[in-house]
């Protein structure tokens, strides 16, 4: 308990909210009062005891859809971010360590990818490839990894010239040790802060794609897709579209609060012992 009390309030809020989202995502079938695609009432019913958040444009329970939506949104965003980080960081670090042709070719390739606006690139690729979760995650992850590559290469180039890396090279260490044991722990701080941001970008990107009809396919929906489904209601004063939008915002803030906290805990060079 003492450990929890030492966490600053904003971080605690972030942790609690993130945990709630994650729990909702994991136990969606147990928590949700109705099925995901089950039509339970009239179109756009207001909030009531039966339907806490009202119903959506087809008369489905909005709360249940939100909970199932959390599952899809988090699942895709987490996997896409994990992919973009492992790919981007490993390639970025190795480019910095190996240098020369390897670095030049990789960097120009990344420049090439980055010169095309991400959204347009994503739209083109997704409209050609079969629309399923795997392609979606791959496309999102690879497109995002270009940004991570840039950052990790820049960070690693600075670390690579430090004496301790030279000492490791003189010892005869392989690139694996140099990348994962010498460079990675020292590059973690900027990467973690970027991670919080990138995760949210992934959520937003997924929402955008779904909004445009190329993301998650109905009847499943992530939060962005739910905004799209219910957007027409806004004209009639129906808040159904605003609820998923608010959920996205809350997730964004809480994940970043957690990332900040992790950052604070790990920047100390004295092993966090004070």
């Amino acid at each position, binding site marked *: 308990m003492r450990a929890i009390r030492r966490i600053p309030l904003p971080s605690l809020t972030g942790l609690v909210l993130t945990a709630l989202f994650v729990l909702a995502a994991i136990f969606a079938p147990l928590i949700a009062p109705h099925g995901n695609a089950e039509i339970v009432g009239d179109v756009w019913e207001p909030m009531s005891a039966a339907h806490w958040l009202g119903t959506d444009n087809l008369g489905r329970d909005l709360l249940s859809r939100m909970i199932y939506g959390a599952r899809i949104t988090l699942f895709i965003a987490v996997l896409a971010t994990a992919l973009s980080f492992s790919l981007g960081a490993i390639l970025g670090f190795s480019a910095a360590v190996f240098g020369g042709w390897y670095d030049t070719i990789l960097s120009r390739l990344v420049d090439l990818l980055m010169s095309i606006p991400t959204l347009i690139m994503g739209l083109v690729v997704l409209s050609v490839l079969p629309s399923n979760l795997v392609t979606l995650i791959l496309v999102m992850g690879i497109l995002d990894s270009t940004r991570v590559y840039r950052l990790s290469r820049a960070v690693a180039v600075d670390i690579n010239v430090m*004496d*301790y890396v*030279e*000492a490791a090279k003189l*010892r*005869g260490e392989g690139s694996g040790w140099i990348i994962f044991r010498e460079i990675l*722990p020292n590059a973690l701080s900027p990467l973690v802060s970027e991670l919080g941001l990138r995760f949210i970008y992934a959520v937003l990107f997924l929402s955008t794609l779904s909004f445009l009809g190329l993301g998650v396919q109905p009847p499943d929906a992530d939060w962005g897709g739910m905004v799209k489904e219910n957007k027409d209601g806004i004209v009639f004063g129906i808040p159904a579209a605003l609820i998923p939008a608010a959920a996205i915002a809350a997730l964004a803030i809480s994940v970043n609060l957690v990332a900040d906290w992790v950052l604070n805990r790990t920047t100390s*060079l*004295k*092993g966090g012992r004070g």
Partner: protein
Amino acid sequence: MVDGKAKSGPLLDIRNLRIEATVYPPGEAPRTITLVHDVSLTLEKGKVLGLIGESGAGKSTIGLSSMGYGRGGVRITGGEVILNGRDILKGGKEGLRKLRGRDVCYVAQSAAAAFNPAHRLMDQVVEATLLHGTATRAEAVKRAVALFKKLSLPNPETIGQRFPHQVSGGQLQRVMTAMALCSEPDLIVFDEPTTALDVTTQIDVLSAIKDAIRDTHVAALYITHDLAVVAQVSDEIMVLRHGRLVEWGGTRQIIKEPRQEYTNALVSVREIEHQEQQPGTTPMLSVKNVTAAYGGGHIKVLKNVSVDIYPGQTLAVVGESGSGKSTLARTITGLLPPEQGSVVFDGRTLANRLADRPKEDLRQLQMIYQMADVAMNPRQTVGTIIGRPLEFYFGMKGRERDKRVAELLDEIEMGKGFIDRYPAELSGGQKQRVCIARSLAAKPKLIICDEVTSALDPLVAHGILKLLLNLQQIEKVAYLFITHDLATVKSIADSIAVMYRGEVVRYGPKSKVLTPPFDAYTDLLLSSVPEMEIGWLEKAIKGRRMESAGN
């Protein structure tokens, strides 16, 4: 020093100065620490007071307090700083602004970092004078040119038109002194003005500063950790430690008859007994006619260099910065493949490139760096840092490895309580010791020591040198010792190579290299090492002038 406008009482009178700072240790409540404990000093007009001590002694903090300045969150919380009869701490911001750059000027340690690279030197030199409106621009420029002349800068008329990167480090330091003198202040604070310079440059800057102080009758606080330097310029010396006054007295008294034990340790720090060993028959490592270059062969940094190192002995490579000493180390370790020549180790020629060398060759050659701070991964514990070579070269694991790490920690005179510490939790000397243990862990035959003591305080450096010599006895390891400090060389070397512009100009056993007749460069190098003796500077400069006239 009787001056027309001399007032009664001292120029600067600091009484019971107390300086504090708040530190924010992670995970703990912020707490206040006291950096300077009730230090008092007085300085007469036209006199020079030397402040000396190790890093963290509070010398710079005290020096800056004479202009009412606290660096990086440091607060002056008690005492009085009276300049010309006025307590400057009570003058408020307005008063301080009038004072700084007019009554008190500051000369920083690194002139290269202290000048704005985007402005011409002259604009920066006259800036304070113009700002305070004490002279018109034409007058100020005239004054500056006169000062440039006095500080024997080349082309005094035109040097002001240059940008900071267009002059050398020693010249820049002198321009900075001219900048401080330009507004004709009463007091100048010199904060380690020669520490970052080579010995041969240091002597020029030192004598220029000394002449300028004498001719302008300015008072000065001279901050340094080098007692020999401060003995040349100051009238009085104040020894500080941990923010407390240790001893304060005339220069002669401090260096000849120190009354405190600590002062005595500082004065007598440099002598280490070391019996010179005769070179054996077969060298362990020989560098044969090596030529190396940077930038695809355009800039030759090593020209036809040959040296030998014998088993269990120490070869010192001396020279000023840019002479190619560190490049020689890079060539031997394989970081910079030579263009011509070869490195022979234990009878076999080493591969030129690091990547082509077998693990065994890498193990035999270890290196210790100048900056222990950056030579250790800040995210690894001492146990990992020392244990990794054991794991990597000998495949030691678990308890066996920990046992050996503990033994090594014992050898470097640190207990095994340090095994879980991170580098940030060690002092400068301890860090360098851990680096030594890391290189010893590989059981090498040769350790390359690249300026290992130059970033350390004299007393700590002394301890490191003694440790290195002891370890040489125990482990029978040879050292290639790169340094610009001749005092270090005298205490530990068996043979010496003097390098100048990429060439070895003098090479042989220590006793032979250090006995006359010298070649011109070795003589310059030897005569430039400050000695703890009053009047040494004048003698050295005079001796040198005759020398250069003779050449």
